[in-house]
């Protein structure tokens, strides 16, 4: 018995299964952090992507073929992202790729997609470097400089805040990038970063940083992190008696934000793709369908995933054939796509140009405050 178990355990790795491929399918690959410390981001994106694919299949697929989505987990590790993307391209023969949330992992995978000439769209990697990898790499979200600019402008013009403090997530490339661009723009606009402190995602206690910020009396605090930490940060800030408004980026967009932050986060502002009290039919429809399928409200990453998948499907539909180059050309041509997250047009740098909105948290709704155009 023992021997048998050992044998099975040892031979398991070599029984790498093969998946059947049918010519009646168009295979799209997705890679993301489905497990590990950033699993919640990968899973949210996956939900949005799946919704888009299911819709397309319900409508009869594309070119008479069903769309098959193969999602592979990279555990939130860059080297896994690289190997997973290689596997998707080599073994699953995907026609295009969707992923990743984090720029660090998109940057690890993009060169592979580029060299194999498989188009890749990242739904939410905001670092400018990602699409600079090559002409097969696209994105359907903002880039950090734009979002940084939006919030810096908002802070100085709308809130008249000149002395701003930053609390960044040093473990997240997204947060660090956004904080840097925000700082640069704020200085340009005559503002001043009076304190720049950091935390690491996964932390639960931020009082030390906040106490330090409090002594400097900032007029606003910019927290370019994810909702997973921001809710707790807001609570602790209020507990310490910090009254300055809290600002953030699209990483805040999740129903969980106010569930965790409760009253403390109310009144915080963040830049986002859309406000969830929008009356835009695409967004309303998306929220309805999402709710019906998953029985929860979508967060920003789900919306971004949905849009990226939609853009990709549109390009595949318009492409004369399923070669990478053909799909690539069509993605590059996308203009004025009515996405959940705004009108998406791909520019010559393969980035999406779309307007951003600044919203204010009020319970579960993100109230529209202002629109900022690129």
């Amino acid at each position, binding site marked *: 018995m023992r021997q048998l178990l050992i044998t099975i355990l040892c031979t398991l790795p070599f029984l790498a299964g093969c998946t059947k491929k049918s010519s009646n399918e168009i295979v799209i690959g997705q890679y993301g952090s489905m497990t590990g410390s950033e699993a919640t981001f990968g899973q949210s994106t996956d939900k949005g992507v799946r919704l888009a694919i299911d819709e397309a299949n319900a409508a009869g697929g594309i070119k008479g073929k069903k769309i098959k989505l193969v999602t592979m987990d990279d555990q939130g590790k860059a080297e896994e992202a690289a190997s997973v993307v290689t596997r998707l391209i080599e073994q699953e023969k995907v026609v295009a790729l969707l992923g990743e949330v984090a720029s660090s992992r998109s940057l690890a995978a993009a060169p592979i997609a580029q060299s194999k000439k498989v188009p890749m769209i990242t739904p939410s990697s905001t670092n400018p470097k990602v699409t600079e990898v090559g002409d097969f790499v696209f994105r359907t979200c903002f880039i950090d400089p734009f979002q940084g600019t939006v919030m810096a402008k908002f802070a100085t013009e709308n809130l008249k805040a000149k002395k701003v403090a930053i609390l960044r997530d040093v473990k997240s490339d997204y947060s660090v990038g956004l904080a840097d661009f925000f700082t640069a723009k704020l200085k340009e606009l005559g503002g001043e970063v009076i304190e720049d*402190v*950091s935390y690491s995602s*996964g932390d*639960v*206690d931020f*009082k*030390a940083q906040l106490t330090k910020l*409090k002594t400097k009396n900032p007029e606003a605090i910019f927290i370019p992190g994810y909702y997973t930490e921001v809710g707790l940060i807001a609570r602790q800030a209020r507990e310490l*008696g910090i009254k300055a408004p809290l600002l953030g980026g699209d990483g805040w967009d999740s129903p969980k934000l106010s569930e965790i932050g409760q009253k403390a986060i109310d009144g915080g502002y963040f830049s986002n793709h859309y406000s969830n009290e929008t009356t835009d039919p695409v967004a309303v429809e998306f929220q309805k369908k999402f709710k019906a399928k998953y029985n929860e409200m979508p967060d920003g990453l789900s919306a971004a995933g949905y849009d990226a998948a939609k853009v990709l499907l549109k390009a595949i539909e318009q492409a004369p054939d399923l070669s990478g180059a053909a799909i690539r050309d069509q993605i590059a041509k996308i203009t004025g796509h009515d996405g959940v997250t705004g009108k998406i047009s791909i520019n010559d740098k393969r980035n999406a140009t779309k307007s951003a909105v600044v919203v204010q948290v009020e319970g579960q709704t993100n109230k529209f405050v202002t629109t900022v155009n690129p």
Partner: protein
Amino acid sequence: MQDFIQHLINGISLGSIYALIALGYTMVFGILQLINFAHSDVYMIGAFAAYYAARTLGIDKNPGVSTLVILLIAAMAACSLLGFTIERLAYRPLRKAPKLNILITAIGVSLFLQYSGQVVFGADPKVFPAVLEDSVLFTLLGVEFKSLDLAVLFVTLVMMVLLHLLIYHTKLGRAMRAVSTNMNVAAMMGVNTDRIISFTFVVGSALAGVGSVLVGMKYPKIDPLMGMMIGLKAFVAAVLGGIGNIAGAVLGALIMGLSEEMVVGYLSSTYRDALAFGILIVILIFRPAGLLGKGGVEKV
């Protein structure tokens, strides 16, 4: 001055959270010389047990002492059961195996709990129910003293005293000490070592359960990986104080909490995590058995 006192309060409150978890580590280490890596995940399960208990009983929006008691019982029960099961299934078969094997098994159990937690509970963070209203007890020099912070500190100290009494003033505790000093001799003297070890795991895990509810109250965001960082730091704290030593765990945890807080407050926030380990290394270099640990000369 005001901010210094605030930092002090923050540090002690953070330290007492570490201490609650560190106590569990130190107990198991004391008796088995095993770094129970799964302890921080038992703590995570405790938090989820309390979360689901509150939801099924419909008391998640009903803060009060009765809710606290119910959740504590739920978490402690779930953790004890889990701790008992882990010891029984994973550690007991390895009692005679080399240390590193047991360490790897502990890591395996930890990974298992984390990843199955992500499958079962979902990876997204959950909001821990409001258990007690946090209120300002009194204000001193412009710094507010909150009921939750003091409750955590109080519970930690009570646990420490109870554990001390258990270990040094009961028959069971004497048996535990006997097993920890020499398992074989204890067995020869008629101590049922397996039962004592199980008991240690049950107590240690119940402590993790208490910790999970208190931490959940203070930081109401729970997720399957919540135990990782806090567990590591709590463990470092236990080693710092001299692992196996109950008072040492609390002392180490308070030092950890305070030094982290002070570094962020007065030096650099980016190196906060590096610092925790930096202190540990410096202390271990000068006191290889931790602050309160017994050095002991190896018998030749």
